[in-house]
């Protein structure tokens, strides 16, 4: 019985590359990883947005209407619906002039109960310290 904690750290902007999308889809895949593991073993993802990566968290992304692709907004809501721990870097939000109102902080509209956390980088660094492995996107 063990839990391996993985840190998915997103510093890339959305859409130009697939990096941030793949971070979330892989983190979400933790839901089905047990089929490969012994009973009781699990993989626990934590997702943190840092640097320009915080721009993935903006509300009202119309990528589906404009380009027919799932928005990062939708992926982030799906992550929160699954009660994933999501951190958004406070200093980077402030640097880019983003208020909490502008960001996706919950998935209430699709029935989610978990909220995203705005956290200073020092807390994100502690979270990284506590993981078994770190994956930067």
């Amino acid at each position, binding site marked *: 019985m063990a839990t391996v904690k993985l840190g998915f750290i997103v510093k890339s*902007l*959305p*859409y*130009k590359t697939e990096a941030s999308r793949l971070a979330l889809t892989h983190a979400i895949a933790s839901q089905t990883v047990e089929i490969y593991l012994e009973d009781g073993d699990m993989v626990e993802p934590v997702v943190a947005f840092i640097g*320009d990566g915080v*721009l993935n968290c*903006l*509300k*009202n*992304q*119309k*990528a589906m*209407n*404009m*380009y027919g692709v799932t*928005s990062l*907004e939708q992926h982030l809501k799906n992550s929160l619906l699954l009660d994933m721990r999501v951190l958004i870097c406070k200093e980077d939000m402030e*640097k*880019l*002039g*983003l208020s909490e109102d*502008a960001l996706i902080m919950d998935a209430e509209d699709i029935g989610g109960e978990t909220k995203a956390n705005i956290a200073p980088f020092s807390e994100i660094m502690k979270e990284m310290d506590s993981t078994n492995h770190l994956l930067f996107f």
Partner: protein
Amino acid sequence: MRLGVIVSDFRNMDETLSRLKADKLGVIFVSNGVYHTATKEGGKKSPLLEKSPNMYVLTEDLQSRGFSEVQIDSRVKPVTYSDLVDVIFNDYDKTIWI
């Protein structure tokens, strides 16, 4: 030369853009370049907005990323793909993608 410059990203665009000289220089923000038109960094607007009096932003890319036209700098003109075709054919002799 009338030169249209398509700015397709948020970082590392200034060095190339600042050096280009043209009788008429246009700047067209697309893809992650649209962040220049709608975000401030450290309270300041993007220095790229000072490079030309002729600026455009692709509305499809703006809206995909969570912005609406009311949020962009007033000097920047929102254009659709259809408008952009006219900009390329009518307003500039050459168009480059950086």
